[in-house]
C-alpha cells in the first residue's frame, strides 16, 4: 500500500521502475551480466588476481562507450521494425569529416561537430527514405548505403587523415572523478533515448510502427515519418560515436568503424538486450545491458589473455544462447 502511494507521488520514478520491472528481457540480461561478473571475479580470485579493479572498470567503460552509443541508435531503428548496416562505414566517414574539418585547430571544433552531425543526419535520411519511399528492405537499403560510403572512403583515403586538436581529445580520455567523459556521453545518449521512447509521442509511435505497421497506420500514425526519424536518430548516434573515436585516435581513420565491427556488433548488443529483431518490443535498458555484457566478456578474455579466435567463438555462442533464452522465455 505504501509502495503504491510512493509510486503515485513520484510518477516519473514510479513509471520508470514499473516499466523496467515489466521489461522481462532487460531483466534477464542484467541477471546474466551479474552472473558473468561473479564468474569473472571467481576466476581471478582463484588465480590470485583481482577482477574489476577501478582500472578495469574504467577500461570497460572506455571500450564500450562507442559501441554503446551506436547500439542505442540501433535500438531505435530496430524497435521501429528497421535495421541499419551502414553505421560502421558511417563512423569511419565521420571520424574523417571531424578530423579534416578541425585540421588540428581549436576553432574548427564547433564547425566539425556541426559537419559530422549534418553528414550523419543526411545518411540517416537517405537510409530512411530508401526504406520507406522506395520500399527496399532495410537490410539491402542500408547495405547499399554502406557500400556507397565504402566506395567514397576507398577512393579518397589510404590511411589516417586530418588531425584533432588536443582540446578535443579530452572527450576521449578525460575523467570526471572515476567516470570517463566518454562513458558519461554514452549515459547521456542512452538516457535521452530512454526518455524519447517512454515519454514522447515519437517514442510511442516507434513501438507502434515496429509492432504492427498496419495497426499504426489505421490509428493515424504516419509510419514512414517515424521510420525516417528513427533512421536519422540512429545515424546521429553513429556520428556521435565517430566524434568520440576521432577524439581518441587524434585523427580520422577510414577503417575504424569496420575494424570495430560496429554494424553487426551493435545489432548483437541490441538483441542480447532482448529487443525483438522484428521490432515493437524491447528498449534501451536492455541494450545498455547487452553492451556491458559484451564488454565484460571482452575484459575477462583480455585479462585471461585468451586468443582472439576463441574470443570470437565464445561471443558467437553467447549471442545465439541469448536469443535462444529470450525465445524460450517468450513461449514459456
Amino acid at each position, binding site marked *: 500500500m505504501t509502495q503504491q502511494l510512493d509510486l503515485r507521488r513520484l*510518477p516519473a520514478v514510479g*513509471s520508470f521502475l*514499473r516499466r523496467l520491472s*515489466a521489461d522481462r528481457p532487460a531483466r534477464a540480461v542484467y541477471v546474466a551480466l551479474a552472473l558473468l561478473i561473479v564468474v569473472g571475479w571467481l576466476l581471478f580470485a582463484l588465480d590470485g588476481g583481482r577482477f574489476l579493479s577501478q582500472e578495469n572498470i574504467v577500461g570497460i567503460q572506455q571500450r564500450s562507450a562507442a559501441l554503446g552509443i551506436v547500439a542505442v541508435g540501433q535500438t531505435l531503428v530496430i524497435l521501429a521494425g528497421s535495421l541499419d548496416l551502414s553505421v560502421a562505414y558511417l563512423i569511419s566517414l565521420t571520424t574523417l569529416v571531424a578530423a579534416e574539418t578541425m585540421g588540428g585547430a581549436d576553432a574548427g571544433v564547433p564547425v566539425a561537430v556541426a559537419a559530422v552531425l549534418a553528414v550523419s543526419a543526411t545518411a540517416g535520411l537517405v537510409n530512411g527514405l530508401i526504406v520507406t519511399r522506395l520500399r527496399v528492405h532495410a537490410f539491402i537499403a542500408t547495405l547499399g548505403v554502406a557500400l556507397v560510403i565504402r566506395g567514397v572512403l576507398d577512393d579518397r583515403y589510404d590511411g589516417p587523415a586530418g588531425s584533432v586538436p588536443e582540446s578535443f581529445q579530452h572527450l576521449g580520455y578525460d575523467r570526471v572523478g572515476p567516470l570517463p567523459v566518454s562513458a558519461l556521453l554514452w549515459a547521456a545518449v542512452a538516457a535521452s533515448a530512454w526518455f524519447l521512447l*517512454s*515519454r*514522447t*509521442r515519437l*517514442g*510511442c*509511435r516507434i*513501438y*507502434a510502427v515496429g*509492432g*504492427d505497421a*498496419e*495497426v*499504426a*497506420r*489505421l*490509428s*493515424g*500514425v504516419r509510419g514512414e515519418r517515424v521510420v525516417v526519424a528513427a533512421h536519422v536518430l540512429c545515424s546521429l548516434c553513429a556520428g556521435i560515436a565517430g566524434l568520440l573515436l576521432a577524439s581518441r585516435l587524434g585523427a580520422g581513420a577510414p577503417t575504424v568503424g569496420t575494424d570495430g565491427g560496429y554494424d553487426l556488433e551493435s545489432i548483437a548488443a541490441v538483441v542480447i538486450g532482448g529487443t525483438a529483431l522484428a521490432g*515493437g*518490443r524491447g528498449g534501451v535498458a536492455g541494450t545498455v545491458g547487452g553492451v556491458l555484457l559484451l564488454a565484460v566478456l571482452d575484459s575477462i578474455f583480455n585479462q585471461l589473455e585468451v586468443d582472439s579466435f576463441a574470443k570470437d567463438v565464445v561471443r558467437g555462442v553467447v549471442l545465439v544462447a541469448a536469443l535462444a533464452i529470450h525465445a524460450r522465455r517468450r513461449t514459456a
Partner: protein
Amino acid sequence: MHDCVLKMTGITKSFQGVRVLDGVDLEASAGEVHAVVGENGAGKSTLMKILAGAHAPDGGSVEIDGRTVVFGHPVQAQRAGVAIMHQELSLLPERTVAENVFLGREPVRRGLVDRAAMESATAELLDSVGEESFGPRDLVRRLPVARRQVVEIAKALSLNARIVVMDEPTAALAEHEAELLHTLVRRLASRGIAILYVSHRLREILDLADRITVLKDGSRVTTADASTMDAPTLVRLMIGRELDSYYPPRAAEPPGPVKLSVRGGGNARLRGIDLDLRAGEIVGLAGLQGSGRTELAKALFGAAPFTSGEMTPCRPCSVREGIAAGIGLVTEDRKAEGLLLNQPVRDNALLVTRATRMRRPGIERLLERVGLGPLRPTQEVRLLSGGNQQKVVLARWVAAAPRVLLLDEPTRGVDVGAKAAIHELTRELARDGTAVLMISSELPELIGMSDRIVVLRDGRIAGALPAGSTEESVMRLAAAS
C-alpha cells in the same frame, strides 16, 4: 428511426477493373444497430473500408450528420466520428491497454506524453463499459481475445465516435463471449452511437440488429427491419436461391468400426480424455473458449501430444506420426497455421502428400472433389476468398485420405455458400468411411452437422449428447460450474 447519422449514397468501387461495389446505399441512425450481411465477396468489407477512409470510393457520396465528407486517410474518418473494429484485431500486443487506446493521439503536457492522464482516461472508459477484469496498464498480449475487443471499444469511445463499424467481431469468440459482446453493443447503441455490424452469424444478427442490409455481388439487395426477417429469408437473399436444407442429412446407417480410440488421455491442458471416433460418424466437439477443444484436436494429431493415457492405433508424439497413423487436422487459423499464402493452390493442396511421400492424386481431380474445379492450380492462395482458401486446406487432407479427420472451426469467416459446400464435403468424407471430429463455436452448425456431440469443460469431457440435442443442453454441459 430518427436522426440519420450516416448516409452513403451510390457508392461505387472497382479494383483492377473488377467492380466490387455498384451503387450501394446505406443509412444508419443514432442508437441503431445496423447489420450488413452478404456472402464473402459481396462487398461488405470494401464498403466498411470506404466508410473508415481506408479506401476511396470511385463514385457516390458519404454524408455524416448531413454533411458530405471525403476521407483520404483513416485518420480523417476518425476525426469525423467513425471508428472501425477490424476483423483482425487492430491492437499492439506488446503495448499497454492505455497506450493502445490512445495510439496516435497520445495526450501531451509540455511536449511530453502524459501517461497519468492517458491511464486515468482509459480507466474511466473501461469503467463506463463495466470492464473490471483488467486495467489501463496491462499488456494487451496478456488479455484473452474477448477482452481485447473491449479495448477496441474503449478506443472507439475515446474517439467520441458517432459511428462504430464492427467487422465480424465475434468470429473469434465462443458463444458466451459473443453474448458479452452483444451486451456491450447494445449499451453503445443506447448511448446514441450508430453501429454497423458485419457478421456471418445470422442468428446473432437477427438477435442484435434493428435493421439489416443485405449485399450481394456488390449491390444492395434490400434493407429491412430485423423483425421482419428470419434466417431462411436472409440466406435466400444473400445467395439468391433457397438452400434446400441448412445441413446435409445425417448418416442413415449406424457408424462403422472404431478408427481411433483414447483412454485416459492427458497433458498439460487435458485430463482423462476417453473418446472413440468411428468410421462414417461426425462427432461434434463443443466447449467454451479455453475449454481445450483445439488442444484436444492437436493432441490427437500429435501436434501437442498427450503425455499420458492409451490411444489406438497409436499415440502420436509428433505430427509425422499422426499423419502416418492416418490422422488429419484442419487448423483453426487457416492463415497462420493452414496455408502458405504466397504459394500456389497446387503446392498448398499437395503439401501433406509431398512431405510424407504419399501417392498423390491428380491435382485437377482433387480440386474438382472439393469444389474448386474452375480454379487454376497455379493461382496464389492469398488471392482467394476465405471460403476457397478453406477448401484448399480441405483438399490437402482429401489428398492424403486420412482415416480420421479433425476439423477445427472449418467454416470460420467463410461465406454461406462455401459453408454449405464444406458441410456437404464433410458429410461425404464421413459417408466414405472417414471418422470425423468437428469443432465449432457456432452451436447451430455443430448441432446440425454432428451425429453425436462431445462437450469439453476445463480440459475434461463433461458429457456426450445425441444428435439433435438443443443448444441449451449443450451450453448447460459446457458452462456448468
